[in-house]
């Protein structure tokens, strides 16, 4: 196992929206991932890497390169599906890195050359997307990724399946991952297509509150001085969060929403003129997950507000010479004006 110590997630000061967005995706990996946009030095990467320590445990098929779920026959790889006797092992969800320089072969998987030479047979050697199945796929500087690599990741993210039809290999395997990207918008934008695939987007800025800033420095220095002691001090908080996440996962299936909430989501999307229907669906799912995290089993107006903030801004049509900022207060008013929500 990876023994490298990461700064504890719970010790990150401020950046509440970013942290919440990440946590919600751990609770429900079907939310569609998070894109974190922000200037340098805003704990973007720190937060993503720190997730490692709070990730929930789940069952995996032993020795399956795709970490298949032994209980979900529908989403297993071919080899697991063909077997009756699947041994389940407990393992924590992982953060899988996709370096910007990764070649397409490494990402989608390729022909096992050694085997081809030895036996003349064509076999598939799994790539990063195989590792990423049921895990978090993390792409730092995602806006600098090669177009053609982006295309294949998009494809897999959309379908939950990686289909490889290249260099003599014909293979497909499940690739359902939580896509987490970080980027500095000063270095260029993301293609709209990729942007839309992210369920949630958060803009992060450095904290400006002096108290907070002081706390940031303090904790950082403490950590630098003695990482182990620091981790020990935060262990309790970390465990608490992990428990809260697994509680929320159990609660999520029981969370209900009224018809009024569904209508509201539809109306918000129409009034803002977002493309397609993905925003509506994401909004409801995010709201449900947030309710579960807060320990409630029905969706409230507050859940909808948070969901709207995370789901809508990047799906709005842009205007020049304007910060791409929608009028979130108008949306809040819409939500508040509803009776019984």
């Amino acid at each position, binding site marked *: 196992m990876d023994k490298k110590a990461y700064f504890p997630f719970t010790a990150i000061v401020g950046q509440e929206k970013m942290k919440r967005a990440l946590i919600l995706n751990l609770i429900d990996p*079907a939310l569609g991932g998070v894109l974190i946009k922000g200037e340098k030095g805003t704990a973007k990467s720190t937060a993503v890497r720190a997730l490692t320590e709070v990730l929930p445990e789940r069952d995996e098929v032993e020795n399956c390169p795709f970490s298949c779920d032994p209980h979900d026959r*529908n*989403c297993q790889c071919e080899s697991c599906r063909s077997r009756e006797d699947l041994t389940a092992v407990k393992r924590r969800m992982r953060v899988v890195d996709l370096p910007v320089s990764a070649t*397409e072969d490494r990402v*989608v998987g390729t*022909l096992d*050359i050694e085997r*081809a*030479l*030895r*036996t*003349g*047979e*064509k076999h598939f050697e799994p790539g990063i997307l195989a590792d990423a199945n049921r895990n978090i796929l993390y792409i730092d500087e995602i*806006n*600098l*990724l*090669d*177009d*053609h690599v982006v295309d*294949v990741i998009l*494809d897999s993210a*959309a*379908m*939950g399946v990686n*289909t*490889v*039809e*290249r*260099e*003599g*290999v*014909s293979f497909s395997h499940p690739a359902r991952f939580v896509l987490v990207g970080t980027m500095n918008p*000063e*270095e*260029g*934008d993301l293609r*709209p*297509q990729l942007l839309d695939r992210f369920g949630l987007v958060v803009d992060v800025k450095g904290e400006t509150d002096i108290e907070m800033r002081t706390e940031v420095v303090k904790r950082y220095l403490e950590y630098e001085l003695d990482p182990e002691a620091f981790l020990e001090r935060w262990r309790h908080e970390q465990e608490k969060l992990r428990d809260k996440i697994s509680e929320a996962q159990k609660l999520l299936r029981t969370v209900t929403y009224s*018809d009024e909430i*569904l*209508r509201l*989501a*539809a109306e918000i*999307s*129409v009034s803002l003129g*977002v*493309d*397609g*229907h*993905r925003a*509506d*669906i994401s909004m*409801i*799912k995010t709201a449900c997950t947030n309710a579960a995290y807060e320990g409630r089993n029905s969706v409230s107006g507050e859940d909808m507000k948070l969901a709207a903030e995370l789901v809508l801004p990047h799906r709005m*049509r*842009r*205007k*020049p*010479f304007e910060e791409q900022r929608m009028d979130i207060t108008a949306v809040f008013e819409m939500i508040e004006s509803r009776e019984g929500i």
Partner: protein
Amino acid sequence: MTPYPFTAIVGQERLKLALILNLVDPAVGGVLISGEKGTAKSTAVRAIAALSGRKTVEVPLNVTEDRLVGTLDLTNAVNSGEKCFEKGLLYEADGNFLYVDEINLLGTHISGILAEVIASQENIVSRDGIEYRHPCRCIPIGTMNPEEGTLRPQLLDKFGLFVNVSGEEDIELRTEVIRRRLEYELDPESFCARFRPQEEKLARQIIDAKKRLERLSISEEILRFCALAANSALCEGNRCEIILAETAKALCAWRNGAEVTADDVSEAAKFVLPHRMRNAPQEETVQQNTETSDKNEPPENTEDNSQTETEPPQDTALQEENSAEQNEKAEAAGDELPLSAEGIKSAAGKNGGSGKRSKTIANENSGRYVRSTVPHGKCTDIAVIPTLCNAALNQRRRTPENGMKLSVRPSDIRKKIREKRTGATILFAVDASGSMGAKRRMRAVKGAVKGLLSEAYRKRDRVGVVAFRGNGAQTLLNITGSPELARKCMDELPTGGKTPLAAGIAAACELLRAERIRTPDALQYLIFISDGKANVPLRSDDPFGDALTAAEQVRLSGVGAMVLDTENSYIRFGYAKQIAERMDAQYISLDEVTGSAVEENVREFINNE
């Protein structure tokens, strides 16, 4: 995974109809689905395949030629020395759906193969020592988001029908979309079970329609009508009227009509014509027609026919987009014009060749591997499968060592040919400050950007705009190849304020630098449009000095630069010329600041570089 049921899709009636028509009669020739994100495009395709019991053979964007068309069966060749054909995706696609998601992003080489096979309905393989041919009568389905650029004309025409989809606007429908999707995700099995009766009913209806189709005939008169419609829509070639007749027939069978009527043809035309119409560039026609926009002129009744009245009511806005010489068929199809206008205008190819400057073949070890070739000199980018296939073909004369099954010699080695979507990156840095000509400059740039992007998909050019005014520079349009995005982003063009010249140049440099990381193969050009009069400094207190320093950076970065001087007052200061010299840029004084003037200068500049 159980696919989402076809009958559970809310709205999107035209898309659903187009897919059904293909099942009723595969001769209709597939569907190209264009539309914004998240509009059930892929869902519908998967659903219809499941409903009809056909396979969906998916062509991923990163497919290589060997897997698409098929190749030598390596294992067999190694073990028995026999040359056998290993089937590719096209073999499987015979009689099934051939599905390409985001088809407009497919590389030149692969889309060329697809276009050929779809048209000939046969796959002829001649590679890796293999000669093989097999039929490939598939129903091609492509999806695309026009924001990402248009589809190559040769492939565009191969799709029988065209549908443009957008999200439902009706609140009730929208609510239903969310509700069903969430229900499905919660428990796919029981959701599908609930819709099974509807699914089965639809499947039966399709089979019934197929039977009716066999008995349907088409009258001479209706065929003439098809030809007329194709003719007045100025479609190229004769495929159009054939597809039109087939589609009308399928529609008639589906609707249980007694015989194919002109109504059927009118309805079919909405699917068949949009992507085939040759039309004047959209922009100009819109402008021409805005004066008459409110009148909603009735379609001309001078030609035949009674069918005009049976036309469904149309949006007035849609009619405006059409040029003068259309008949009612063309109008009916008008809602999908934006795509066809651009696609076909470029297909006509007035503006020179297909872009000598845009390297479609990437020369470094980057880009998407599409096929292989015999290397010249040392090869660092080995195409493994073709190499092994070659080795396998020569095994009989060799003895493998070290327990290997294969002995590979240097002469077997094949090199990868990679393809990359690159072209020129053209960045405009425009002075939007309060001097006299700001508005005109901005409009000119907007026009030029649109012009350049209208054939961007072919030349793979990407365009961006940085505007500077007030206290800084803003990226008005991030470097993009999408006319759609450009249209959205350049809707409003605010001007006024001071002139931070240095900031403008610096911002442009920074944007190009980031772009170089992303597309190292693309040639970069900076087009600087200003009168050169700076009054906001960047670092020091000398605005013009700072601008010259920034200009120096442009020279050092090796970007091809051009300065378009818009100074046109009686007394000329020649600041812009000084900046041009510092940038080592080509200098042109613009007498007339218009979109076409800017576009022309840019084209000429780039073609000569």
